[in-house]
């Protein structure tokens, strides 16, 4: 097909003219922008999962220092839902003053298609480029050198495990010994799963979901979904290995087969039905939130079989906002070392701002909820420094979603590995253009 390009402006004008007569309801947006720095304004922050700003009291702190500003947070649990809504709003309007972007979307957001919707934060007042991890900064920068997002956190991985369940299954429960069980190879992690399952307490599984395992394997691989600017997934080393191990885990019956981030997954934490979960730093917040106070002290943390980065996010300021300057100021403040350190201490997100590592209470931080005082600061900041970022691209998020769904087909829909693989490729062929 040879696309014959045409702009759609005329039709848009016609449509506007037809409907203009009907605009009697006067429902257009109220309130106009103001340059007065002391004018009363509301900044809305759209994010997903647990960014930890509310939890760490940062919004309160900021509004106290700036009494004219009110902050509202629109939080969606699952990034997939968040992104669907966000791309609709990027197109149709109605964006928040600040929008979070996840790693798997950042290549698309910085692409020519979408980067125009965001403002350049490298020129924002008070922003300190050197403070951010260089690769993180680079990921949010377009080919033209415009930086559309400031890094909030990175996702160095570990494995979180239930020491009580490990003991019950006759496995070691001390972090060093547990790390040694699977050191260096994700296949060993599945193998330990078999041992666990053989003696597991009734109704408990070794891991929550094989798609978590799949993501863990892919995230620790240098090759993921892109190679030299081209999509690769049928022969990507990371994808193939992750898929194979996920299939093995399903076959071995060591996974509970939950849909990650879905409601049953959340409730399973409090019901103690699985013993391990792949644990990027940001997952600690979920563990504490969903397991609840009743399970305090039961989780501990061990090193992942291989180091890698899973997720991590950025904050961006849409150009369409009414208070761009104020929003940028808030983003700069939220991603500054002191604030990232506070978020880390509260919910465990590892700072993307490397200056935060030098602050007291970060690398020497121990998480009161996890382990008997697990040295999570040290574990994750070491892992963060070891990250070599994998190549990413515009469809990273779509591919990631399709393969996670493919693993689910094996787990929940009784598909064989081959059937699920074929279905996943079919899905990608149909939806990724």
């Amino acid at each position, binding site marked *: 097909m040879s696309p014959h390009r045409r702009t759609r402006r005329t039709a848009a004008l016609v449509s506007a003219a037809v409907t203009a007569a009907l605009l009697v309801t006067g429902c257009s947006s109220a309130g106009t922008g103001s340059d007065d720095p002391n004018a009363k304004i509301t900044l809305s922050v759209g994010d997903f999962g647990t960014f930890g700003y509310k939890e760490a009291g940062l919004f309160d702190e900021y509004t106290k220092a700036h009494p004219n500003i009110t902050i509202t947070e629109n939080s969606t649990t699952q990034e997939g*839902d968040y992104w669907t809504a966000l791309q609709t709003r990027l197109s149709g309007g109605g964006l928040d003053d600040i929008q979070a972007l996840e790693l798997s979307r950042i290549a698309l957001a910085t692409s020519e298609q979408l980067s125009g919707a965001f403002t350049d934060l490298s020129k924002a007042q008070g922003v300190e480029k050197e403070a951010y991890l260089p690769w993180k900064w680079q990921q949010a920068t377009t080919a033209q050198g415009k930086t559309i997002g400031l890094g909030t956190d990175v996702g160095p991985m570990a494995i979180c495990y239930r020491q009580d369940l490990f003991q019950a299954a006759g496995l070691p429960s001390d972090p060093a010994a547990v790390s040694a069980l699977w050191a260096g190879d994700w296949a060993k992690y599945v193998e330990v799963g078999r041992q666990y399952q053989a003696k597991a307490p009734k109704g408990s599984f070794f891991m929550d979901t094989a798609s978590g395992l799949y993501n863990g394997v892919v995230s620790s691989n240098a090759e993921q979904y892109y190679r030299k600017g081209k999509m690769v997934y049928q022969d990507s080393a990371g994808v193939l290995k992750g898929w194979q191990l996920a299939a093995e885990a399903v076959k071995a019956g060591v996974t509970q087969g939950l849909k990650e981030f879905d409601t*049953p997954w959340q409730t399973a934490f409090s019901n103690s039905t699985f013993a391990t979960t792949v644990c990027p730093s940001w997952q600690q917040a979920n563990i504490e939130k969903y397991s609840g106070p009743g399970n305090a002290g039961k989780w501990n943390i061990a090193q992942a079989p291989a180091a890698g980065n899973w997720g991590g996010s950025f904050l961006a300021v849409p150009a369409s906002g009414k208070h761009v300057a104020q929003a940028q100021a808030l983003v700069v403040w939220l991603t500054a070392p002191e604030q990232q350190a506070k978020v880390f201490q509260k919910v465990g997100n590892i700072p993307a701002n490397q200056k935060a590592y030098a602050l007291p209470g970060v690398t020497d931080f121990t998480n009161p909820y996890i382990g008997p005082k697990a040295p999570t600061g040290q574990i994750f900041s070491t892992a963060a420094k070891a990250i070599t970022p994998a190549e990413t691209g515009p469809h990273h998020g779509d591919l990631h979603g399709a393969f996670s769904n493919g693993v689910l087909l094996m787990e929940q829909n009784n598909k064989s590995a081959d059937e699920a693989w074929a*279905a996943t490729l079919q899905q990608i062929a149909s939806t990724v253009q």
Partner: protein
Amino acid sequence: MATPTRTHRTGPPDPRRTSRRSRLHRWDRTASPYLFVAPFFLVFAAFGLFPLLYTGWLSLHRVSLYNVDQADWVGLQNYWDLLFGPPSHFFWNALRNTITLGVLSTVPQLLAALGLAHLLNYHLPARGFFRTALLAPYATSVAAATLVFALIFSPEGGMANWLLGLVGAGPVRWEAGPWSSQFAVSVIVIWRWTGYNALIYLAAMQAIPRDLYEAAAIDGASRWRQFLHVTIPELRPTILFTVVVSSIGATQLFGEPYLFGGQSGHQGGADHQYETLGILMYDTGFHHSMLGRASAIAWTMFGLLLLVGLANTLIARRLRSAQ
């Protein structure tokens, strides 16, 4: 109601004024009907007809959600893709699901409604209570109803599995299986609409002349035969109406499967096991940002609805000529 215009007539008529008045009056008489119907036609033109045609135009283009002002002409490519190309598997699957879900939810619903209307037509104590109670599900929104049923069909601690457990069956992963999920989704639809249709049937039943029954009774027809030979034929137009409305509704089924699926509801389940055409359109356009193809799905749905309408008309005509 007082007519205030009467006071005007008492004064001496001013010829100039009268003629202006009557001209205005005539203008008022000729123009006002058009002014009165204009709002409807304007709204329909702007938000019904124009979008419908615009959908057709978009369906011949490649349009990204990220830049809706740029459309690249692709001819019938979108339709070709749907029918034979990479997304065809999902299109046919969605079409199949729409039909099976439509049958699963509509047929039991209307049959139950008919029986229910018959029961309601007895002389009853507290009939007002029964009617309001049966209509309560209709007042519950799709979203609220689906959330509650999602909990009932939840794999963990759901009431449906508990009930199955009482009789020694289950547990069932309702959402994961193709039939179990479609059954569950149909239950939501049936729950919401049965009472509504029953009340429509009831009203039609009460409009049936009593002498028809008296004549049948004299012929010695049992109550059941009266139902079959008097009630059902007399209800024919009403039944047809509910069939039309329900099948139009079934073709557009969206909210129930979308919300029932939780995280994967946007594609009708991990395996698309209960993905309807409505969901496919939403997922294609607003999840995978392909507005052109989504428009092609929309027009295909429109064609399907026309077919459903045509089939209904033909059946109605045959029934009428058979009468």
